[in-house]
């Protein structure tokens, strides 16, 4: 029996398990997936929790609900990968050999990387919303908060779901307006980027939205430390921003197991060919999603598009053919802008987010770089699509490769 091993049963690992089980013969191929946790989190839903729009139960399901028949599932921590021996060591001495390995161990928040962030005020006046614990703690805090300086800070690039902190401040504007507190809440968006986003057209559009909503932006801010006593964040250039409530997007890092395996870059992301998704370390190792260092967004949509490419290229490798699929960096993000409206961006390695319309058979089209009610519904419908279609590796009516149809240059 040949062995395909998948590390991580999040979005990428689960989709790949479903896709590969369909195409690899059961009597020839063992497929095994390893994850330390039994719960699958719908991570895009975390954003909605602080504002009382989703509860915990809206974003969790057992991982086992999404596994195909004929998949070996192991719940265990991973010690390390030994690429030279084609094997993975789990905790307590368990050894798994593989012919092909897919790394899908994602990224995690690492607040301990910023001095003072996980200090006395952590989960008292300082929160994150990229973990279920942080999102729930913040929801409780906002229930009774009387207002003050609300500072949203991104610690470092890259970070998961690059539009989420923008959506957070848009939601906060609407939430505190609806509560009659908006005049008592000063919202400041503090980012290491030179503006609201990376690419010129999206930055302009989103920057104007921030201005319209009276949200201040402090760009080019690289946080050096959090002063818990005087309640301010300080950057390396000495700029200080005071806060009453700090919502942080902490430094994102790959799994510590990647570092133990000697396979990571300085943030524990795995050096990966950005077109083929093959690891640069070994020919029989592939990487999907946030775990890879490819220069596109760390986001579920990217994982979904990569999965089609990875399936094809993995089959090429198994059958001894040259790679035929090439990932273009395609990302597609609905952006909530508050008051039941949203906008949408669609881009890849080479094409920045453009205005126009995005065709979506059956539901769309959706407006690109435009604020509309339809885009908000797109985001809500997506949760259903995620649980019922996407994780199970079923076909979606969207191309993995970015299309120019509808876009205006």
């Amino acid at each position: 029996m040949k062995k395909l091993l998948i590390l991580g049963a999040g979005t990428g690992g689960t989709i790949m398990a479903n896709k590969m089980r369909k195409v690899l013969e059961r009597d020839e191929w063992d497929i095994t997936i390893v994850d330390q946790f039994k719960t699958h989190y719908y991570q895009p839903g975390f954003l909605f929790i602080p504002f009382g729009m989703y509860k915990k139960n809206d974003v969790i399901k057992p991982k086992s609900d999404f596994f195909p028949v004929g998949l070996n599932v192991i719940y265990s921590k991973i010690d390390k990968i030994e690429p030279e021996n084609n094997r993975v060591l789990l905790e307590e001495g368990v050894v798994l050999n593989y012919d092909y390995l897919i790394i899908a161990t994602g990224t995690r928040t690492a607040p301990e990387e910023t001095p003072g962030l996980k200090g006395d005020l952590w989960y008292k006046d300082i929160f994150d919303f990229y973990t279920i614990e942080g999102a729930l703690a913040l929801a409780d805090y906002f229930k009774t908060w009387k207002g003050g300086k609300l500072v949203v800070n991104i610690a470092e690039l890259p970070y998961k779901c690059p539009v989420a902190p923008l959506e957070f401040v848009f939601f906060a504007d609407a939430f505190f307006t609806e509560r009659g507190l908006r005049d008592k809440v000063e919202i400041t968006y503090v980012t290491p980027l030179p503006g609201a986003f990376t690419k010129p057209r999206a930055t302009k559009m989103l920057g104007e939205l921030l201005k319209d909503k009276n949200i201040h932006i402090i760009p080019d801010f690289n946080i050096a430390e959090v002063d818990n006593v005087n309640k301010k964040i300080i950057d390396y250039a000495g700029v200080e921003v005071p806060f009453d409530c700090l919502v942080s997007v902490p430094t994102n890092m790959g799994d510590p197991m990647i570092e133990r395996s000697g396979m990571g870059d300085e943030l524990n992301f795995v050096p990966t060919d950005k077109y083929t998704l093959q690891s640069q370390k070994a020919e029989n190792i592939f990487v999907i999603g946030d775990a890879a260092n490819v220069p596109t967004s760390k986001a579920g949509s990217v994982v979904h598009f990569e999965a089609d490419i990875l399936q094809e290229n993995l089959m090429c490798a198994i059958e001894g053919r040259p790679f035929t699929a090439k990932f273009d960096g395609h990302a597609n993000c609905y952006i909530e802008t508050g008051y039941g409206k949203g906008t949408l961006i669609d881009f890849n390695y080479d094409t920045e987010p453009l205005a126009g319309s995005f065709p979506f058979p059956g539901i769309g089209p959706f407006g690109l770089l435009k604020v509309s009610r339809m885009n908000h519904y797109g985001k809500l419908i997506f949760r259903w699509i995620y649980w019922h279609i996407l994780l199970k590796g079923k076909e979606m009516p969207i191309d993995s490769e970015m299309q120019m149809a509808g876009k205006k240059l």
Partner: protein
Amino acid sequence: MATKTIAGISVDVSGEGYMNDPSQWTKEIATEIAKEEGIDLTEKHFELISWIRTKVMSGEALTIRGIGKSGIVDIKEFYQLFPGAPLKKATKISGVPKPASCI
């Protein structure tokens, strides 16, 4: 693409003044770009510039974190050497393209 004469040498630059071809770079060019940015280059600057050039020319991405781990400076010292926008200034003076921020 535009050309610009820096320290008597004609080089290809981007609209924002970053050199497109790192091989056209000389120490004299660095000194002159640094002057425009209000920086007098020291040996420490050149040590870091050389590290940045090696890193970029081998195709690796440049980050503030990476520079902090270079063994030449920590991040605070990096800000002191290139005040204000250190990564932008340092890359411009090092004759390499502006680092793309991918998120």
